[in-house]
């Protein structure tokens, strides 16, 4: 009797399938693959004389169909054996992710080296580092060392920006 009650309770507490990680992840894979599959139909078609074995779109098409097919198998398997529930992502994860976006914006608009410095400082700070000397070390000294190393040893020319322009001039 107890077992039956427990089972009923477990079924009640289990979230609907539409809200499970497996459904969301696998649906996303299928949606993206389907969009890409549609995109393959827009690829140019080469005339038979230039065609090397198969059309350029055929191979990616076959791959995408394979991915969709395999994802559907995983989908049905997940109905039988549900995926383990993942822990909620912590605040620091999203901060790191936002920092990546900030990095792209600064690198694109202001300066590449500055973007590295800002990201290093913010990540280190939000991950819990509060000692100012270490923050400066990681966000100023280290990026400068890396910059000079790549510049002198590999002869790399970094993209123009407010700081790199001063260095190159």
């Amino acid at each position: 009797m107890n077992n039956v009650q427990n089972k009923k309770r477990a079924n009640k507490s289990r979230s609907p399938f539409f809200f499970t990680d497996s459904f969301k992840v696998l649906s996303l894979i299928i949606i993206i693959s389907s969009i890409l599959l549609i995109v393959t139909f827009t690829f140019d078609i080469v005339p038979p004389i230039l065609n090397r074995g198969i059309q350029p779109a055929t191979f990616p098409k076959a791959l995408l169909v394979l991915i969709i097919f395999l994802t559907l198998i995983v989908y049905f398997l997940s109905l039988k054996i549900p995926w383990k529930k993942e822990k909620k992502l912590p605040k620091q994860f999203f901060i790191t992710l936002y920092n990546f976006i900030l990095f792209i914006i600064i690198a694109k608009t202001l300066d590449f080296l500055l973007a590295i410095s800002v990201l290093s400082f913010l990540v280190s700070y939000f991950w819990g580092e509060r000692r100012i000397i270490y923050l400066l070390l990681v966000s100023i000294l280290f990026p400068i060392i890396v910059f000079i190393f790549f510049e002198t040893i590999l002869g790399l020319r970094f993209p123009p920006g407010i700081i790199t322009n001063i260095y190159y001039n």
Partner: protein
Amino acid sequence: MENLYLMMAPLFSSKLLIVLFFGTLFGLILGVLPGLGPTTGGALILPFTMTLDPLSAIVLLTSIYCAGTYGGAITAVLINTPGTPAAAATCLDGYPLAQKGEAGRALGMATVSSTIGGIFSVVVLVFFAPLLAQLAYEFGQPEYFALAIFGLTMLASIGDGSPIKNLIAGAFGILISTIGKDFMTSIDRFTFGINELSEGIGFIPVVVGLFAISEMLTQSTLLNQVFKRITLKAVKLPSIDDYKKTWKTILRSSGIGSFIGVLPAEGGTVASLIGYAEAKRWSKKPEDFGKGSIEGIAGAEAANNAATGGAMVPTLALGIPGSATTAVILTGLIIHGVRPGPDLFREQPEFLYGIFGSMLIANIMFFVFGFFGAKIFARITLVSNKLLWPMIFAVSVCGTYSLNQSLIDVWIMLLFGVIGFFMRRYGFSLVPVIIGLILGELVEGTLRQSLVIFEGNWLMFFTRPIALTFFILSFIALIFPLIKRKKIKND
């Protein structure tokens, strides 16, 4: 005799010895740091190798590979966290033994068995790579296509992740390789009007993104994790009694590791798991496994280092990577204008035997470093993640940018970092993506050329004995994980 002399050449080159020294040192540091490892480290160091000649560059990468694979054991024993995935099985007995106050003995056995496994695999490499290369002379386009398919189906049985998810990840890797201008007809594919994508997506941004950046994101979720560290006084060489207990295990695992390594796409992780399982199966005291068995450490460590030489066999002889790290080494070879395959053995034996000799020396070097320096290397794990990962980010960004001096490579790296994080979170292994990416062009190219030869008749593939053999092996590779799962269920 001449080959032996060529193998010993690195010993007489001060430049190569310096490269080996730093490669081994760097590999150990990478191996010790959880989350990093020889694959990420190799990818990060790849741009720096452009300043070196081809032999020095590959020697640097292979020494990182050998030492990095061993380095994972130090963290596995002392903080119960594998420095590299290949050291996961080492945790099972290394940490319990360290908890009993025998960390020095555990690391001593890990060092000795890793060195023996590594040296054994170099011997396998020296004998089997030329033989395989000779066999590859018989290969035409259809055979290479079938071989690449075999390599991809082997992804199904890679240790972490379900077989089907591994195959999806592998297909995703191949799909990435189709981005850009079609190499046969120059038709744009998945470029979405972005000019920079016409050249395709580079290997380095994908590898650095998938391994380094995704790991950075993973670390951001583990900031509150506390490691229990075990203090190490000194590494102890195994006693005569320990040798008596383990010599058969070491030899068996060396053989298993080398064999698994030779199989395309398999690597140290699979080798160490099988090496550990076999050590337990053959042990007189299987009940001690998981509680600090010295045989368990020997079985796992000999196997994962034996896989290094094994994995280099298909990489050098066929151009098919034996593991994720050898995929990076393969990229290094291609970047430096060296085309792996049978011709390499005929035209540049001094180059190949230089690599073989260097791997041998790297195995001896990490033995010395590990034996005398494990205590210092263990301290590296004390470096705070709050400082370490921003620094790794700086190197990753500059390293990725440096190859083509293109910012789009950096954006691609970040994108793959996010993709890699979610892939790992939901149980998709990253290694198949890398193998798929590197084999993608080979698969498509050989398929299309074969169809030209066969005038579009697909059935002609099955008339070629070698190709047919690879297809049968591919079929076995696909159903093997299912049989294995059923057997485990029945047991």
